[in-house]
């Protein structure tokens, strides 16, 4: 397996940057997500304006994969409607499960496509999907 396809530049950059890693002042929704087996533990915060995700951030601890995935997801869903965000979550989860053949359908995931190869590292899939499941929980 090629490590480059997992620990790619975009993932490492998001892991380092931390620009989405902070607490929001007055969040409308706070949702905690946790991988009991490995200890990744994030808290996602959302600020809504009607049904638009106006702002989002996260705090917590975890590996580079979980941290980067959370950060990339936040960049992606900020400014989107709840419906669009949920659609993106479902597309991401389907991509991870290799349920999507049509590459064009994945384009809307933008940088999150970087996680397409995570299934080559089965032990780490749960790290990549944690934030997305947490967002789904928060919005449903």
């Amino acid at each position, binding site marked *: *397996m090629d*490590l480059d396809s*997992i*620990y790619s530049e975009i993932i*490492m950059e998001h892991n*380092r940057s931390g620009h989405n890693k902070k607490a929001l002042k007055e969040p409308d929704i706070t949702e905690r997500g946790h991988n009991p*087996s*490995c*200890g*990744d*533990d994030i808290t996602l915060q959302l600020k809504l304006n009607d049904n638009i995700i106006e702002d989002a951030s996260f705090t917590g*601890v*975890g*590996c*580079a*994969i979980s*941290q980067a995935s959370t950060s990339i997801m936040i960049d992606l869903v900020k400014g989107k409607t709840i419906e669009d965000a949920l659609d993106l979550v479902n597309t991401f989860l389907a991509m991870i499960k290799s349920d999507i053949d049509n590459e064009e359908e994945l384009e809307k995931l933008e940088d999150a496509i970087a996680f397409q190869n995570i299934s080559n*590292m089965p*032990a*780490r899939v749960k*790290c990549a999907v944690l934030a997305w499941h947490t967002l789904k929980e928060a919005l449903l």
Partner: protein
Amino acid sequence: MPKLNPHQIKEDFPILQQKINGNRLAYLDNSATTLKPIQVIEAISDYNKKSHGNPHRGAHKLSVLATEEYDLARKKVKEFINAKHSEEIIFTKNTTESLNLIAYSYGMNFINEGDEIVLAISEHHSNILPWQRVAKEKKANLKYMYLNANSRISEKEIKEKITTRTKIISIAQMSNVLGTIHPIEQIIEYGHKMGAIIIVDGAQSVPHMPVDVQDLDVDFFGFSAHKMLGPMGIGILYGKKELLENMPPYLTGGDMIEYVYEQEATFAPIPYKFEAGTQNVEGAVGLRAAIEYLENIGLNNIQKHEEILVEYALDKMLKLPYIDIQGPIDLYMRGGIISFTLEDIHPHDIASILDTYGIAIRAGHHCAQPLMNYLKIPATSRISFYLYNNTEDIDQFIEGIKKVRKWFGYGS
């Protein structure tokens, strides 16, 4: 007279002959499970080819052979830990089941409201959760002995936590996270003085050092075959005869009975009282072969060999300023387990990247979340040694750590 040659031993382990991602395999996850020598693999295979039947049940040859094999394994375990009687050896599924058996069969029946159960903060979840249940159900108090800065339980802590209200003390002989060997001799002696019974989780100790349950005067002792070159799915519970005889059965069903009537039943004597249903005979056969293999090399030699590896590894690791060792950094009373954290790199990333270089380590909370909370860290990486490891494995690991750092954009 070093009798132990890891290069020669490696040849007994077919699984070590393979390449992982094109690299030599450095297997450093022995606290999780150990690999099997060809002698164990063949013993299980021979049993299945020649002697497999349901023990204790049939008059036919195969059933008799299976019974013999099962009894021989029990006798071998008895000798291995120097129990007084063979019937003090009960086969279970693993250490977890051994501990649950004691909690349910002894704890639920002999613990009363206000009694104390004392554990160490470094316990594996398998030695915490059963006691949480007993404590809740019986309104008993669950107390923990904490560790000092060098990951050890002080004599003061022992005397402070164990009181005349303490009825059960349950502690691992060796911490699966820190490698600390706890002073169980003192704990057993003091605990008995206070009127408690003492349970020792030997999962991490028995495979790596000589253990004599009579000498320790321990009341119950549990361990697993798969952490000592044997198969998964078979574990051992040693218990003092008089304690086991007074305990009700844990699981009930076939083979553990004396007479069964419509509304009640009487039970077989120990050990059968605690072995309901068809047992894991091929597991027992593999366990016996594993003990024979270990005895051939000598537990003293294995312990010495691992001490040398720990010294070598600690020396190399302490020279790298970005590595933080979680656990004792001296060699006194510690086994071949080293937990560590790496500045700014999460243990799971370390383990995944090392894996691509053929280095197998464990990362996570190691089923010891209360310890992680106590140490205020979310997770650690852990290397753990066994008789087939050598300094080459450690060198490969150290080089691997430098590569992990590079992946994360740090210099070596």
